[in-house]
């Protein structure tokens, strides 16, 4: 709409940096906001300006619309990019920006609202002729009693999903009616905690389903295109872990791709969509596909689409928000090569994927041809418990899926993070699985057919090498402890300290 020259980025972590970079490359000034936990975060340093907005918990900082709008006004930012998460899918925030005369870099409030309530969203797209998974569409605020009554009609297994939700939070799988009451309770509790809204709905569980999504771009004039699909079936507890583009299930079936893409465009148009968004589908093994939901924002996994189409999605978002037409037509969209993204999370794959926090003392990222890292941490950064566990997104591009897999393997082997546990070993195992390599997996693959321990069987292992390393480390530690105790007995001279400090700082 407006020709803004300064953008406030209402987010943190890797996505804030992604957006700041795009703005810099367009000559736009950037304004960062940060919580008390994030003064040392990279986005604070990479932006042109940075302002504190409150204590560490999101609700006191990154979710505070009032403070963020204040910073926008104070700094003269003409636009706000919400990233993903936090305020990205809050229609009231989009509206508040508009009311304040600030461009919201995302869809109109009405489109967010229509797609944000999953039940309304389903009703809307059904009216436009888009197929959906059977479930409780209509009202989103059914009581437990009503849900228990309707469940047998949908059939088991089914899913309980948070009406306001996303990212697997507040989601539960129900195999039989008996376990439903307790699962409803925990789903509502988690949804309430995550979104401030405990409403849930039911949805048939499509078995053997693949999660395939289409990237949408739409300008203010209603020109709407898709940038092909992303395969997101590799999930654990409904959290995406590894995505690829194209989908090996679609691969070179261009007709199938265009059919799904056309439906995705239709769904977006049903809510008069503008800016970047994503239509998620469930696809069964017979190539039936069902609308799942629309994410009315930039998606975590957008880089893989960028790598295979050559379209910079954030740059397009900024163009669209400035009222310009899309820079390409549907016919000009070509998927070339293959891209894979591994989400590198601070969590312990050997201990039930528990989140891991701490001081990152070393961060050596893989580089070289065909490797892209979108990261929000650096050596010296403290990973706090307040925000999500995503450390970085490791993205590779290859001419073929095979090349991309080999490239990702070497990149994972090169990646070194010290200070927190990461799920890198999990990705390494996945990439060695015959079923993964064959492209033969669904959304249940990780939970049902994969465990790190099983995966370890049948592989070449190096227990002797591990024994040597462990013994040498233990031996060194024992020697060093003895040495330190011995040294402590001597007086440490002032001058040694100073010269050590000087050496460190020269």
């Amino acid at each position, binding site marked *: 709409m407006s020709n803004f020259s300064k953008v406030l980025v209402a987010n943190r972590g890797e996505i804030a940096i992604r957006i700041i970079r795009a703005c810099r490359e367009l000559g736009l000034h950037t304004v960062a906001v940060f919580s008390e936990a994030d003064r040392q975060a990279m986005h604070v340093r990479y932006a042109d300006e940075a302002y504190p907005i409150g204590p560490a918990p999101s609700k006191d900082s990154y979710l505070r619309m009032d403070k963020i709008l204040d910073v926008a006004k104070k700094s003269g930012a003409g636009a706000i990019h919400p990233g993903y998460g936090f305020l990205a899918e809050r229609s009231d925030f989009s509206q508040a920006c508009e009311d304040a005369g600030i461009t919201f870099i995302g869809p109109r409030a009405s489109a967010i609202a229509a797609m944000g309530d999953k039940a309304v969203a389903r009703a809307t797209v059904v009216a436009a002729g888009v197929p959906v998974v059977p479930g409780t569409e209509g009202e989103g605020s059914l009581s437990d009693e009503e849900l228990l009554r309707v469940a047998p009609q949908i059939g088991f297994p089914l899913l309980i999903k948070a009406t306001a939700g996303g990212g697997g939070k507040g989601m539960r799988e129900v195999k039989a009616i008996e376990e439903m009451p307790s699962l409803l309770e925990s789903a509502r509790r988690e949804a309430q905690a995550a979104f401030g809204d405990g409403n849930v709905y039911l949805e048939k569980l499509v078995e053997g389903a693949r999660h395939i999504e289409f990237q949408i771009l739409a300008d203010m004039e209603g020109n709407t295109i898709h940038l092909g699909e992303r395969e997101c079936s590799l999930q654990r507890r409904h959290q995406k872990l590894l995505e690829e583009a194209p989908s090996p299930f679609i691969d070179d079936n261009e007709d199938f791709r265009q059919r799904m893409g056309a439906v995705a465009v239709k769904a977006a148009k049903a809510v008069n969509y503008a800016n970047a968004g994503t239509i998620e589908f469930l696809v069964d093994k017979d190539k039936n596909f069902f609308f799942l939901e629309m994410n009315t924002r930039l998606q975590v996994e957008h880089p893989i689409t960028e790598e295979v189409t050559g379209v910079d999605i954030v740059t397009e978002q900024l163009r669209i928000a400035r009222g310009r037409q899309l820079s390409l037509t549907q016919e000009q969209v070509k998927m070339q090569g293959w891209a894979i993204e591994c989400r590198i999370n601070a969590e312990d794959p050997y201990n039930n994927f528990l989140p891991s926090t701490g001081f990152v003392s070393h961060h050596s990222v893989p580089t070289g041809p065909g490797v892209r890292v979108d990261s929000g941490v650096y050596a010296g950064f403290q990973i706090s418990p307040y925000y999500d566990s995503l450390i970085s997104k490791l993205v590779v591009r290859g001419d073929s899926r095979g090349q991309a897999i080999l490239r990702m393997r070497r990149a994972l*082997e090169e990646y070194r993070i010290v200070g927190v546990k990461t799920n890198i070993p999990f990705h390494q195992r996945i990439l060695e699985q015959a079923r993964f390599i064959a492209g033969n997996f669904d959304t249940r693959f990780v939970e049902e057919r994969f465990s790190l321990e099983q995966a370890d069987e049948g592989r070449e292992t190096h227990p002797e*090498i591990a024994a040597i390393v462990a013994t040498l480390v233990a031996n060194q*530690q024992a020697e060093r402890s003895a040495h330190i105790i011995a040294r402590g007995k001597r007086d440490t001279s002032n001058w040694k300290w100073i010269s050590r400090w000087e050496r460190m700082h020269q």
Partner: protein
Amino acid sequence: MKYITTIDEKQYEVEILGPGQVSVNGHVYEVDFQSVSGQPIYSLLVDGQSHQAHVDQGEEGTLQVILRGALYTATIEDEREKRLKVAGGVGTAASGEFTMRAPMPGLIVKVAVEDGAVVKKGDVLIILESMKMQNELKSPRDGKVVRIQVKAGDSVEQRQAMLSVE
């Protein structure tokens, strides 16, 4: 120096013969061992084969070795069959009482058991929220819950003791 190192229940007799030589179960290897960047990352050349390992402290004085994406948990005992105390072990006793400590800082969502409750291995004891996820912390063994030190709504620090199972 001679050690008995156990990896995944298999024992290796590892003898450090001198700088650059190690024997494993009697087989002698030429070894070049270096830490990288002063970090717990190690470069190891064994008869010319180049290995890179990330070594962390595990529970009960073990070492966790990540090598080519695989985890090996190692227990190292010295030649007199006495367990080697490696620095920084996590404070869970091998037998007897188990103390559940917060694996990361977070907010207690729920304490799912009461003092004195009899629990089985795998039962959920505490739900802890951290990094926007609710994590169910389960009992590693059968036993009786004692000394509950946290309640719903509490913030806990990493490694803070929350309750014990005896």
